[in-house]
């Protein structure tokens, strides 16, 4: 029990960043190169913080509201962005993140400017975070196992082929944007209800890079990829305490090494390895049909 108490803040941090990573994962999985998650998170955070401080609304109402608003912004963003591809999409969404940042700094009466919003009541518990991550995983897992999930895979691998098979590309990109926005809004609200105070610079380039890094490290196909990635990103700095000042250096090196040597990420890389090994086993068993021939038929 003591152990849990000691590591509880770390666990909470991990759960929140896992939520951000899942929001980033949804779009990447569908082949959309959007990095708008940080901007959508900031919308959720600020909305929830304003609702909770100025209007005294409880998190039970603020979090669903932030989820809906995040979803709405995801939908809105998808209208212009579904037309763009690749680097253009990345740059446009980065511009969106910067616009949100500039707005948060500028709209001082509403957002507190550079000082941010302080004294947000803490209403989010570890259990609540755990529940939200589990819920998100359940929803995304269900989607992945059904038609939209298969279509996301097809879109990521080859958009041309997917389109020629009669799949509506625009609709599924919009769906991915909306999901990403809803998840980002939800976890933005949870973050606001957890850390007492928020400032604009939390939602800048560092969050973009950190979230992207989690998804890349973990993997972009399996739903467990972003979760494992977020765990690595949270635990690594703790394991490397003596290197605490060089956290960025460590993550940067990890990113480069990872992409060069295990480009699918930890989870997908391991899954692929297992699949390949199983494939080899099947290949050898086919060579000697007496052993498994009956079983397969």
């Amino acid at each position, binding site marked *: 029990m003591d152990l849990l108490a000691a590591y509880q803040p770390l666990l909470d941090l991990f759960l929140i960043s896992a939520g951000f990573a899942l929001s980033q994962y949804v779009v990447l999985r569908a*082949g959309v*190169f959007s990095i708008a998650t940080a901007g959508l998170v900031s919308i959720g955070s600020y909305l929830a913080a304003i609702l909770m401080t100025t209007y005294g609304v409880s998190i039970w109402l603020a979090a669903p509201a932030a989820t809906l608003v995040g979803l709405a912004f995801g939908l809105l963003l998808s209208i*212009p962005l579904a*037309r*763009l*591809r*690749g*680097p*253009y999409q*990345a*740059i*446009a969404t*980065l*511009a*969106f993140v*910067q*616009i949100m*940042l*500039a*707005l948060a*700094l*500028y709209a001082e009466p509403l957002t507190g400017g550079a000082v941010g919003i302080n004294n947000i009541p803490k209403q989010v518990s570890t259990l609540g975070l755990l529940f939200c991550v589990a819920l998100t995983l359940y929803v995304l897992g269900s989607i992945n196992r059904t038609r939209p999930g298969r279509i996301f895979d097809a879109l990521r691998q*080859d*958009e*041309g082929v997917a389109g020629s098979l009669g799949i509506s590309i625009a609709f599924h990109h919009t769906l991915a944007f909306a999901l990403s926005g809803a998840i980002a809004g939800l976890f933005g609200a949870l973050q606001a209800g957890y850390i007492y105070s928020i400032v604009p610079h939390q939602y800048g*380039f560092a969050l973009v*890079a950190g979230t*992207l*890094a989690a998804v*890349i490290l973990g993997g972009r196909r399996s739903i467990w990829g972003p979760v494992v990635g977020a765990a690595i990103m949270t635990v690594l700095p703790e394991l490397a305490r003596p290197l605490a*000042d*060089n*956290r*960025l*250096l460590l*993550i*940067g*090196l*990890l*990113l*480069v090494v990872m*992409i*060069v040597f295990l*480009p699918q990420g930890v989870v997908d890389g391991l899954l692929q390895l297992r699949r390949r090994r199983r494939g080899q086993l099947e290949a050898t068993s086919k060579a000697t049909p007496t052993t498994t021939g009956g079983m397969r038929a």
Partner: protein
Amino acid sequence: MLAQQLFNGLVLGAVYALFALGFNLVFGVHKIMNLAHGAVFMIGAFAGLYGVLGGLPLWLAVLVAALCTGLLSVTIDALAFRPLRTSSEAEFAVLITSIGVDMILVNLALRVSEAHTMRFPFGVVPVEPLLVFGLRITPLQLVILGAALLCGALLAWYLYRTSFGRQVRAVSSNERAAMLLGVEPRAVYFQTFFISGALAGIAGVLIGLAFNSISFSMGEPYLLRGFVVLIVGGLGSLPGAAVAGLALGILQTLTVAYFPSGLTDLIVYSVLFLMLLVRPNGLFGGAIADARMARR
């Protein structure tokens, strides 16, 4: 007053253009979006500063900085980009490794500078302003404008008047065909990355001089501005980058002068966003860069 602001904007825009030219050269020729370009720019500013502190005259310090960042950029290409060239998702992978490199360089600079903001010693460039047609022009502004013009002219001469430049342009239109015709791609990669890094380094020293503050975090805002220039000018278009860089400098100076403070970023990035919606290929983007093409 307006003329003065326009001139100040022009000077700032010249540095933006210098920064974006290198960024865009690498993208235009190799389709590599190098997010570490901002960090290279920052390293250039530090190299120039340490050169001056070490007793070098300014012009030599600028050259040394350009050499350092040129070689740094070539090293980044060799370590972080070259292993990915055969990858099926190279476009995406390169973006990620360049973010990684950016983090590494920023962290190193943070450690070396101990998070201090550093300054050039007083009097590196004379500060007495000259009065020309009622404009206050500092010698520093002249130095910046001159250096930017010189670099731009050299780059244009190199790309359009020399055999090396012809090879670079050949690779940019079709790398495979260029290879079949005897162009050595490694040499081309070396040149483009060296030039791109050197331009970023020079821009770094000039910005360090202009605002007289050099810190580990100075790269990021310029990288983000670099995106704006890239899109507005057209991905891969060098004349576009030059014009859009100047325009951005003027736009930024004017918004700072005539609008409430804090609105600048909002306006600049909204322009970028609108540009992507209305004309994603930019002002000068031609057939090379098509934003709507499907991947691969």
